[in-house]
């Protein structure tokens, strides 16, 4: 027996694990998800610290006499005097395609009950953003499927586009519809066998939300078959503020893996207002100096270092991209508040959602006048540029003249025409949630509107007419839609075909029908 034991011992010894050195400390106080630790003389900033019972933390405050660390996980078993030790590594999360279709927590551990995730790689959650030289200009579109956005506020791969508005204005809906639209495009693209097709993988980061809301969102994605291309990272309101603080960075690390491996990814941060509040809570507990609205002085850096990690890389660096859709909630429409203005100054554009428009039934409730995409038509396919180029101007003119709409009979013909066209465009851009439109359909509808085919249809019937036209084209002119999708522009031949199809539809359509 002793021979056997000696054999096993020498086998173990030969594995070369050597001597392990760790730096330890003792918890002196623990409150609200933050531990103050005495010792840990060699801990590094942002280093992962191991606590008893499988709890991990991150060293945030390195002071002369003690270390302040935020805790992740269930801290109820920890007490003063417990020993903790450094791990010698930064907080990292598993990354890779194995995460697609899964719901994970901020440490990348699955929480959906579907078993372990086989990831072979990890990336630190805190990373330096790509520099200037590896980047390339944004010139490929992200088709959100929301016609108002794709036509007038186009988003490109690698762009950061903020979605901002009051509570219950449809911010998350736009993000989820974008994810669903991408999943559908991915499926069709993979089915077509096009070697140049590049799918977009999505990451949805839920920060500080109710568990019921997160569950509903996941169900929506599952129903739309979008989960196969999506990773959901959750840090609900019931978790530590440290989890809510780390969640966006964890999601970003997962997205960066796709970007650095030559693929395209889209990440939604829902929402960064709650993220800022969680960081404020941690900072106040760590006794960091507070500034405006009690936020710590580096709250801008909190978001800038996150959003700068979204980029489009050039060919030499894989040609991948990470597109970010951060969401910010305003109070009473105040877009000049602290956190919203910070993030507006960081992002490459914003989509404003307004409660008044939502209540009037204009959904998505996008305020076109104050929404912008700084990338602009560089991220639009030519076909959409051709039909939607003037739409924003027409909508602006309509808004200016809208107050005069009540004087319908006393207006000159030109003003009336502007009002008629604007009102029809407003109706055309209405879209139910969970129903993203393909880009070919958007091109066809906008072409029909710009070429006066909806002018004889009463304004209140425009939505129904557009749906009818969409169905008609799919049933009777699918080749036209396929041609637009393939060619990505409207040449003379395609325009003639589209014209014939739309005229055919109008002939058989009862313009007075609801």
């Amino acid at each position: 027996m002793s021979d056997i034991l000696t054999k096993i011992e020498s086998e173990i010894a030969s594995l070369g694990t050597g001597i392990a050195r760790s730096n330890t400390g003792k918890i002196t106080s623990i409150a609200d998800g933050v531990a103050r630790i005495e010792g840990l003389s060699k801990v590094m900033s942002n280093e992962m610290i191991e606590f008893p019972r499988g709890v991990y933390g991150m060293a945030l405050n390195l002071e002369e006499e003690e270390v302040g660390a935020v805790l992740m996980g269930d801290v109820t078993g920890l007490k003063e005097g417990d020993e903790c030790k450094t791990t010698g590594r930064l907080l990292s999360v598993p990354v890779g395609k194995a995460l697609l279709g899964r719901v994970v927590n901020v440490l990348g551990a699955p929480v959906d009950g579907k078993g372990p995730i086989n990831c072979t790689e990890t990336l630190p959650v805190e990373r330096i953003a790509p520099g200037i030289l590896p980047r390339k200009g944004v010139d490929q579109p992200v088709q959100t499927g929301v016609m108002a956005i794709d036509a007038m506020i186009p988003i490109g791969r690698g762009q950061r586009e903020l979605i901002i508005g009051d509570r219950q204005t449809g911010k998350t809906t736009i993000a989820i519809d974008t994810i669903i639209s991408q999943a559908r495009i991915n499926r069709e693209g993979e089915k077509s066998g096009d070697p140049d097709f590049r799918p977009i993988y999505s990451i949805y980061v839920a920060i500080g939300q109710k568990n019921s809301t997160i569950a509903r969102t996941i169900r929506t994605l599952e129903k739309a078959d979008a989960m196969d291309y999506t990773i959901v990272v959750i840090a609900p309101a019931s978790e530590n503020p440290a989890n809510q603080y780390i969640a966006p960075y964890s999601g970003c690390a997962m997205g960066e893996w796709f970007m650095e491996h030559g693929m395209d990814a889209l990440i939604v941060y829902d929402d960064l207002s709650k993220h800022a509040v969680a960081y404020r809570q941690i900072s106040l507990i760590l006794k960091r100096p507070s500034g405006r609205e009690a936020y710590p002085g580096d709250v801008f850096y909190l978001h800038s270092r996150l959003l700068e990690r979204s980029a489009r890389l050039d060919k030499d660096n894989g040609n991948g991209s990470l597109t970010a859709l951060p969401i910010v909630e305003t109070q009473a429409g105040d877009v000049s508040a602290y956190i919203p203005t910070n993030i507006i100054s960081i992002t490459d554009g914003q989509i404003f959602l307004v409660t008044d428009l939502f209540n009037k039934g204009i959904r998505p409730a996008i305020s076109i006048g104050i929404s912008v995409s700084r990338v602009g038509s560089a991220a639009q396919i030519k076909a959409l540029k051709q039909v939607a180029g003037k739409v924003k101007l027409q909508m602006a003119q309509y808004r200016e003249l809208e107050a005069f709409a009540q004087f319908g009979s006393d207006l000159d013909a030109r003003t009336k025409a502007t009002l008629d066209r604007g009102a029809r465009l407003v109706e055309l851009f209405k879209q139910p949630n969970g129903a993203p439109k393909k880009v070919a359909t958007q091109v066809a509808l906008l072409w029909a509107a710009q070429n006066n085919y909806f002018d004889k249809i009463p304004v209140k019937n425009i939505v129904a007419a557009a749906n009818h036209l969409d169905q008609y084209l799919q049933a009777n002119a699918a080749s036209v839609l396929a041609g637009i999708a393939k060619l990505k522009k409207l040449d003379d031949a395609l325009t003639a075909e589209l014209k014939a199809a739309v005229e055919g539809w109008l002939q058989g359509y009862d313009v007075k029908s609801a």
Partner: protein
Amino acid sequence: MKPRKAKTLTLARKLVAASIEGGEPTSRRVDAVLEFLGRRPMAERKALLGAYLKMMRREEALRTLSIERAGTLDETSRATLVGGMGEKSGKPLIVTEKETPALLGGLKVRLGDDIYDASLKGILDRLGAHGNI
């Protein structure tokens, strides 16, 4: 102006440095420090004494080499270990030894905040954490 707590800590640190003679705290110097503290206003004295005590305990921990072993440790190995750790810390060390059968084999050495784990239990735990067993 420095906050009061930072001033207290700075002064306590200086007092700890003043307590050390020949590389270690001496009774004579500590008495001198305590006499100095006795002349401070009462409100300040309590905070200073508390900080001074905490730092002196830490100083003691940095000089204490605690050796946990599963079996016996021969004199030569002990001397090499103590000498090496003393050279590393640059201070004269207080050595404590304890037999801990739970280590299974090898030893575990602690100096200040640093733990050097060369025990069989530690190796098995690390292997288990990496999923090798």
